[in-house]
């Protein structure tokens, strides 16, 4: 069955998750990514089981849950990084801008241009700070002249809150920065191509508390322009930065809700137990 066609032409029944009630009056409610019945297998092992979730534009959505529950796997579905892993099979719909991202016709390079990613461990290219940011825009022909490129590098570094720290050493290697700075450099690298969505896979788990706070502030700022989806193991972090939170357990989304609702009165027992630290 062609899931994409079906979803376009038949009215969807309202899913039980995916339409959170929000008390945040300022929150946007425009749909960014729509996920329906998404299942994923690593070989024989099923890692995701019929996920349904709507992700809203210009918000921070946090994915929480115990280790091995499929948060990161789900995140990688959104920019098809799972394609790089041999033996992965995916069924279901991930729809962005009216297009099925898993469709054969969808070019994963085009998708990743619109859905950027920041990884768990800072992984700047072993090139200069400048080159780290300038590489992707140049590759995508977003800039033609050197002056445009300089401007874009400065803009991206400013957005990532790194400009003042590195403006005098743009030609030093990106790997010479501290861990927190490296992670912000990776964020600058991601936003330099002007994506719609930025995926963050535990972006602060390798960082000290101060760098973590800086990144969290940055996420708060960046959500005015970008849709941010972050995986985190840190409950407080989810509570601090996220507008919406999805709780994963054993490859399923148990609960998806406005963050305040999720942390003050979780609807499910499992989410409550996890949030209150009874397991995980």
């Amino acid at each position, binding site marked *: 069955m062609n899931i994409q066609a079906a979803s376009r032409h038949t009215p969807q029944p309202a899913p039980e998750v995916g339409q959170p009630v929000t008390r945040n009056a300022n929150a946007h409610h425009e749909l960014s990514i729509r996920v329906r019945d998404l299942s994923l297998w690593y070989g024989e092992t099923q890692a995701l089981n019929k996920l349904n979730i709507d992700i809203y534009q210009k918000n921070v959505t946090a994915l929480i849950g115990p280790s091995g529950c499929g948060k990161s796997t789900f995140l990688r579905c959104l*920019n098809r*990084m799972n394609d*790089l892993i*041999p033996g992965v099979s995916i069924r279901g719909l991930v729809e962005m801008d009216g297009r099925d991202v898993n469709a054969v016709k969808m070019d994963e*390079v*085009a998708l*990743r*241009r619109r859905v*950027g*990613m920041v*990884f768990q*461990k800072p*992984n*700047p*290219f*072993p090139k200069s700070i400048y080159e780290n940011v300038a*590489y*992707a825009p140049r*590759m*995508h022909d977003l800039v033609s002249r050197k002056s445009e490129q300089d401007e874009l590098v400065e803009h991206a570094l400013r957005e990532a809150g790194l400009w003042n720290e590195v403006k005098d050493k743009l030609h030093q290697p990106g790997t010479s920065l501290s861990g927190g700075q490296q992670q912000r450099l*990776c964020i600058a*690298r*991601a936003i330099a*191509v002007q994506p719609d969505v930025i995926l963050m896979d535990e972006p602060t788990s390798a960082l000290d508390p101060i760098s973590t706070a800086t990144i969290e502030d940055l996420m708060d700022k960046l959500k005015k322009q970008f849709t941010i989806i972050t995986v985190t193991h840190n409950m407080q972090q989810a509570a601090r930065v996220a507008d919406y939170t999805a709780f994963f357990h054993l490859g399923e989304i148990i609960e998806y809700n406005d963050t305040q609702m999720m942390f003050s009165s979780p609807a499910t027992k499992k989410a409550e137990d996890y949030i209150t630290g009874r397991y995980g």
Partner: protein
Amino acid sequence: MSQSFDDISAQLRKRHRKSARLKWFSMGALGLAGLFLVLFFTDMLNKGLPAFQQAQIQVQVDYSEQASQIPLAAVEEEVRDLVSRGFLRTIPLRMKNDPELLGVQRSEWVLADGQVDQYLKGHANKLRDDARERVDRLAAEGRVALKFNTTFFTRGDSKMPELAGIMSAAVGTVMTMLVTLAIAFPIGVMTALYLEEFAPDNRLTQIIEININNLAAIPSILFGLLGLAIFINFFGVPRSTPLVGGMTLALMTLPVIIISTRTALRSVPDSIRHAAFGVGCSRWQVVRDHVLPLAMPGIMTGSIIGLAQAMGETAPLIIVGMVAFIPDVGASFTQAATVLPAQVFTWSGEPDRAFIEKTAGGILVLLTILIFLNATAVILRKKFERRW
């Protein structure tokens, strides 16, 4: 009941003795290996260093009309049998090329005969007693001396030991290696790139991988037979040439380059690939802009080591006819040539004892080049070594 320290120590003594014994065995093995190396080098240096010196003799050369016809007439009778015949033979040609030489009489240092050279170096020689007396007398007058042997480095092979040099073999080696590199490097790197970065991990690629590893362990003479059967007999590549030699050695070097390139590619951390994919690189862009630059030092190191291996290879070249008597320095890839190890092999079979030192001298030159190449590889690796 718990044991006291003394009880435990008593039990441990045996174990400690065992590890001490093992340590001495391994140190002994290392020492033995070192000793052999020292012996080998001393022997080579002892035998080979004299090859870099050659006896010269100061004679009065008379470029007369008669000498242009009968070269022997150019020098006094006393030294005729002491001067290299190779030198005398060049006189008519030199006089023809340079007419002004006619009638000139001058004193020149010229190459002495190989036997004189051996006599001066205290080796076995075929000089008659009266010749030895004359050499002794000339030596006392300072008219015979051992001088730096430029001939050895500037000329090709010769049947006269005093005229034999390694230049033609060195040039042959360079040309053969160029062919080897031109073929093996691109094919090897591309193969490794495909297997490591593009190919799916399935049965077929696993079989290919095993076979490549096996290829590296095949006796090199089989590659020579392959070269003979395929390149010479089937494709008609001219035999004995740097072209066919290089192609044959390329077959042998390919697995080395493929394996070292794959190792280098594998040592590039996946986080770099993910970062590149994450900003929207295509697979080729990931490889070209990120993986390959990081793997390059490793690839270079492996290629240099593969090349050094090929450079010392003789067996496959015997089969494709590169062990040959090549007196002239080659000028093209399709001319018969020889290579350094083949030259050493040829000299080692010469009956004239004067070639013993040539053989050792050739080995020293070859070893120097190989040590230099390997050192380059080590320096490259050290310089670009990256820690993640």
